[in-house]
Every structure is written in structure tokens, then in C-alpha cells.
């Protein structure tokens, strides 16, 4: 498997604050990888290290086979980077900006540029400083897609955009997806769930897990056990059970390592007096809430037992 991005113990400190803590990450080529986490989790710092905007305090990163610390100049002809807070040459018109960037990229595709301009309905003669936030993002997208980059890195690209613009951008992105790798960060799970192929969860600078989205969805189940009579919970529950709640005859928890037959057998052994056991798939949002609420130590132990990256 060829990797578009690979990091080894990548860390970044700002004074005494650890923004990114020994992150090992692998993004396969062709993936749409979503790095999620709460605000301040270290997503932007992580991306800025990948783009050689920040230098790591420790560890290293490789982007398209190039050491991220040496990423500069021509290497960016293969990378498109769009960030919610990136400055733009405000004085330029949209058309002027596209025209200015054009000569930097030997593989710039004027046909695709035209197509993107049409698709995003970009006003070519309007100055960037006079564009709405959504239009600016669309202009940034167009200027980063028109040269068919091998890797598109997006830092909170949909933050603060109305659903219509967001859908337009996602659509534009997905049309390009087969020929490129997409690495994006977001704190909004709902917006990335529909199109991401891989997902990584960053909390307080640490990558709690990183895996394919279907695998993740398959691994988590909301378990509801209805007992014959009120019963005491076993003292030692498996580490893969998160957010255990018990009330009268009902026990609820999140199973973070669901495997159809093994799990059912395990539950039957734990709750021999169970009248009913239901195992419901969880939306991504609920999975993350469960992970976040159950605390890092719990998840780490789960990860360790199940080989999840932590």
C-alpha cells in the first residue's frame, strides 16, 4: 500500500503546551482521510507541520514521499492546500488570482479551471476582498484543484459555510477524488461522515485511533441488555465497554470492539439472566461522544488490546 502521508512520533510544542504529541499516522493514497477532534485538539498544528508551515519539535513526517521539513517550491505543484483561515491576495480579482497562480503550475488545466469556475459560479471580475466567505472558499478550492494535485489538504474547509456552499464544495471535491488523496480536518462529524473513507481522532494532541470508516462503524455497537431481575454488574467489565449505565433491569453501554458471534457469546456469558440483548449500530457522532466521554485511558486500553493506533 502506497502512502500519501506518513508521520512518525510527530510532535509539536508551543512553550510548555503540547499541541501534537507523538502522532503516528498513515494515509494511503487515494483515501479521503478525515482528521477529527474538538477545537484545540491539534488538527491545524498537525496539518501545518505536514505542509512545512510549522517545524516539528520532534518526530518526522513524509508527504508524497518528501520529508515534510523539506517541502517547498516545486513540491507544492502536487499539493493543494486550503485552510479556513488562510490569507489570500485580497487585492486580486478571482480571475486575476487564477491567472496569477496558473503560471506556477506546469500541469494547470485551463479546461478544468473553466469547469470549476462554472461549477462554483465564481465571479471572475470581483476582488477577493469583496467576496463572501463561501465564495472565497470556493475560489480557494478552484485555485487548488485546477492543477489536479496528487494530494489535497483541507483545514476545516467547511467551517462556517452554509449547507448549500458546503455541498457544492464537497461535490467539487468528490469529483476530483478518484485521482487524488484528500486529507481534511474537521470538528463537525456530520459533514465528513458521508464521504470520508478513513478517519482519525485527535484529542489533546494525541491520535486516539486511525482507521477506515466502515471498520470503525462496524466496531461500535450500542448495547442494551434487559435482565430478568435487577442484578449487580460484574466488578470487572471488559475494557472495550464504554459508558456503562445500569438502571433496574436494564444495562446500557457502548461496545467498542464488536465482532458479531464473539460479542454475542461474551454478552451471554456476562448476562446469563438476560431477557433481551440488543446491539444497535451507532452514528459516527455517537461513537465520538462515547469515546470522548469515556476518557482517554479507557479507550487506550481498548486500543491496546485491539491493535488500534493510540
Amino acid at each position, binding site marked *: 500500500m502506497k502512502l500519501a502521508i506518513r508521520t512518525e512520533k510527530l510532535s509539536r510544542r508551543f512553550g510548555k503546551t503540547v499541541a501534537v504529541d507523538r502522532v503516528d499516522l498513515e494515509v494511503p493514497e487515494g483515501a479521503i482521510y478525515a482528521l477529527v477532534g474538538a477545537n484545540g485538539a491539534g488538527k491545524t498544528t498537525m496539518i501545518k507541520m505536514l*505542509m512545512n508551515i510549522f517545524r516539528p519539535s520532534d518526530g518526522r513526517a513524509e508527504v508524497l514521499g518528501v520529508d515534510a521539513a523539506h517541502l517547498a517550491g516545486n513540491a507544492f505543484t502536487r499539493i493543494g492546500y486550503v485552510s479556513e*483561515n488562510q490569507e489570500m491576495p485580497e*487585492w486580486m480579482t478571482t480571475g486575476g488570482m487564477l491567472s496569477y497562480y496558473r503560471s506556477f503550475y506546469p500541469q494547470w488545466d485551463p479546461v478544468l479551471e473553466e469547469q470549476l469556475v462554472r461549477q462554483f459560479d465564481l465571479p471572475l471580475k470581483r476582488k477577493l476582498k469583496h467576496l463572501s466567505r463561501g465564495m472565497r472558499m470556493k475560489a480557494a478550492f478552484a485555485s487548488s484543484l485546477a492543477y489536479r494535485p496528487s494530494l489535497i489538504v483541507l483545514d476545516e474547509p467547511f467551517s462556517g459555510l452554509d449547507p448549500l456552499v458546503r455541498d457544492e464544495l464537497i461535490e467539487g471535491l468528490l469529483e476530483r477524488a478518484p485521482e487524488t488523496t484528500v486529507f481534511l480536518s474537521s470538528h463537525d462529524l456530520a459533514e465528513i461522515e458521508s464521504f470520508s473513507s478513513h478517519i482519525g481522532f485527535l484529542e489533546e494532541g494525541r491520535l486516539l485511533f486511525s482507521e477506515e470508516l466502515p471498520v470503525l462503524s462496524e466496531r461500535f455497537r450500542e448495547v442494551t441488555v434487559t435482565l430478568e431481575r435487577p442484578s449487580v454488574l460484574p466488578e470487572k467489565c471488559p475494557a472495550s465497554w464504554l459508558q456503562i449505565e445500569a438502571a433496574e433491569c436494564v444495562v446500557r453501554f457502548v461496545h467498542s470492539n464488536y465482532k458479531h458471534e464473539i460479542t454475542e457469546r461474551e454478552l451471554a456469558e456476562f448476562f446469563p439472566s438476560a431477557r433481551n440483548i440488543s446491539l444497535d449500530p451507532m452514528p459516527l457522532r455517537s461513537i465520538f461522544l462515547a469515546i470522548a466521554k469515556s476518557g482517554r485511558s479507557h479507550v487506550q486500553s481498548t486500543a491496546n488490546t485491539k491493535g488500534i493506533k493510540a
Partner: protein
Amino acid sequence: MKQILHIFAKDARHQWLEILLSLAVTVGLVFACPSRWRTGAAGFVSFSPIGLVSNLPDLLVYIVPLSWWLLISPVIHEEKLVGDRQFWITRPYDWKKLLAAKVLFLIAFLYVPLLLAQCAMLAEAGFSPFPSFRGLLRDSLSLTCLLVLPLVVLATVTRNFARMTLAVLGAAVCFIAILLLALNAPPDRIATPHENQIAFFLALGLCAAVVVVQYARRNTKVSWVLVASLIVLVGFLALGGAPDNAQMDRDYPHGQRGMATAQFAYQQTAATAPSAFVTQRRDRVGISIPVLVSGEPDGTVTIPDFLQVTLQAPGGAGWTSVWQTAAMDKFLPGERVANAQFTMPRAAYDDLKEKPLNVQVTFALTQAHAEKVERLTLGQKDLAVPGVGICSPVKGFSDRLDEIGLVACRSPLRPELTLVNSAWSSVACSSASTSPDDRVQTAEWIGALEKESTEFGIVPVSITPVNFSNQFAMESNGPGKARHLCPGTPITFTKYTLTGRTQSTIWINGFQLPRLDAGQITVMNQD
């Protein structure tokens, strides 16, 4: 090259207003500057605060660098180097090409217009620009080091014009503080010509390092450390210790072969006795030792630059000065008595004043020789003086407005070291009874051996008044009577060029430090 031109074209398109402003100010200077020499005397009494307001050319000399500031800041900040949100850092910019584009911009819109303006000013002043071309390039280098590069450096370590303005103000405060400290420092601080050159290139190197570090690595912390080092270096050069003997021996070698300079000897007579005086600094005492200067070879001049004094008392007590600036005249052939002045700490003076001393005074000397003599006759019109420029008689600098009281020379760049000799007339030039007996010989030095830039190196024409000595005849009562330069008077310009530098020492045995006259305060020229 394509990327360089692409970025350059973008900058030129965006900064057209700043470019236009800078060009307008430069063109304005070209048109306004000739009034400095057309108005005769008014031209060279210019750098006073009143002159600044009333004299547009002088004002423009200051406005031109300000317009550069407005030019440099936006062009560097167009692709700013501080921060992590710039659009260009994740685009295929090659830092070397980006830097080259910025340099090209400065060459195209700062240096070339300035060079053209300077050529135009030289032509307007009556000089061909071509012989001065090398000097203009040298001035451009000084300008780069003193003005352009520091502005570029501050632009590269700041994120916008407002921050850069703060940085410029901060740097200005630092330099003013250093200047004030240097002015109040004891007269120990001197810089030899070589030291100045080393400092110049060191500062240039540090500035260039900041720019390269910022463009190559965008490491603002390291760059600020380099900027701080630059300020410390300037402070050290301004306030640091005097050069040591090894440095002086390199710059002023002993026993220069083929160089016979003036001879110095201690000269104590009733009329020429050593004296002590209080200086502006209460903790230091000034000492003046009369020396007889003789033996200067014909056609040469000796200029004492620095001196060092050692006082040795019996029993081992003593004091040795650092190299101090020698505030002495230039010595032409012939005998004359001059005063070698130095200052010493009050404590050392009190310790040694009662003791017989062996004194050693070492002079660091520069010798120049006459290379070219131009003998001309003063008239009502301008005189073309090779090596100097164009010298004009100026009326109105005496008690009669119709008499010539001054000669003002305008030169391409700075005039070279030149001795100007002429003769005053004691009676009005219009008087029928002028005779050779009414003539009083007079002389004045203009120019310098070292090539110096004129007014930031912006205006390539310098106006030098030849302030001849003895303009006023002393009378027993009433003000002195003014003398005049009459048309038809011979005026000689002798151009001197550097022969070499050396040291000369005199020894005085049994010297007694003079008693301090507490009431006398003499301000020594501390350069």
C-alpha cells in the same frame, strides 16, 4: 527567471501607487535640487530646522527615503515572511526566486530611478555623470547598507506596515540612545578607517543574513536575534573601547618605507607652555602639550588623526591613554607650534601631578601629497576647477553687498582633499587704490581623503563653502573690518592624495603636569 518576472510583474501591478509616489518625489528632487546651487549661498546653509521648512530640496532629501519606506514595506509584505497563514507558503514559490523578484523590484523602482535622477542632477549642475559613475555606485552601496537594507530587514521580520513602523521607531530609539551615549562618552571612542570598513561590511553581512534566513527558513526568532546582534554591534562600535595598539599598528604602521612625515618635538617657551583644563566631563582633565612641528617635506601635508599618551613616574606609577582623536590642524611644510591635547581621568591626574614624569606621545599620522595644482583667477563668473568642480564667487558675505565675501564650490559627489589659497583685499575692490600691499594671504582646506557619501548618498552634488581665514581685520575697538575677494585675485587649488599612514613618537623627560585652572572649561573636539 519566468517566476521572478511573474512575481515582479504582480508586485509592480499592485504597488503602482507607491511606485508613482516614489518616482514623483525623486523627480521632484531633480527639479528642486538645482535651486541649491542657483541661489548661491542659500544652498549650503540648508540642514537647519528652519532650512528644512523653507527649503524644498532639503525637505525632499528626507522625503525620498520616506517614500522608499512606503515602497519597501508593501512589496516585502506582499509575500510576508512572518506568520503561518500566508497564501504563498503552500504554493510552488522558490524562495530564491521570490527574493530575486523583490531585489529586481527595488532595482527597477528604487535604484534605477535614483541613479537616473542623480545623473540628471549632475548634468544640471554642469558635470558629466560618467566620471562619477563609480562614486554613484559606491554611494548606492552605502545607501543600501545604511537605509535600504535596514528597511528591508525590518520588513522581513514584521507582518505589516504598522508593525514595521513600530520596528522602525524602535530601531530609531535604539540608535538615538546609542548616539546620545556616544556623544557623552569620554573621548576614548575612535574608529580607524579600517575599523569603519570592517564595521560597514559586518553590518551589511548581518543584514543580508537576516534577509536570507527569513526567505529561506522564515525563522523570525533567529532573524530577530540577528537584528539584535546588529544593534549591539552598532552600539559596540559607537561605545566600545578604542582600538588596541595592534589594530593601530596595522592601520598606521611604524616606519613606512619612503614616507618622511613632519617631525614633532616638545616645545616649551614662555609663550608656549603646557596647560591643563577642565573638560565638560568633571571626571576628566584636559592636558595641552605644545609641540614644534617641522620638517614636512615639500608638497606634502601631514594630518594627525589620533594620539596616545603614556605618563611614567619614578617608582612605577603611571598612566597610558587609549588612542584619542587628535584635534590638530593639518601640517604643511614649514615650522609651527601646535598643541597636542588629550584628556585623562581626574584620579590619575591627581596622582601624578606632583611627580616628574617621562612622557611619551605617539601620533597616528596620515600623509598626503600634492598631486595637482590649478592656478586660476577669481572673476565674477564660475570657475571650473578640475578635481573640485565648479566654484562660484558669492557676494553679500561681507559688509558690502556688492563685494565677493565667499567662494562656494559645487562638486560631483564630495570634493577631494584640496587646499585653496587666495588673498583678501583690505580695501573695497571698487576702490581705485588697491595695491599688492593691501593683500592678505588666506587659505582653507576643503574635501576629504576618504570618499564619503553626500547626504545619504541621494544628492550627488555637494556644495562646499570655502571659508577663508582672516576675513575680518582685527581692530583695537569696534568690530573687525571685513576684507573682500576682488576679481582678478589669484586663487590656487591644490589637490592632495593619500601617501600613507604611519606613527611618530616624541619623548619628554622630567615633565610636570600643569596646574589645573579650575575656572577654565575647554570643550575639546571629540569628533
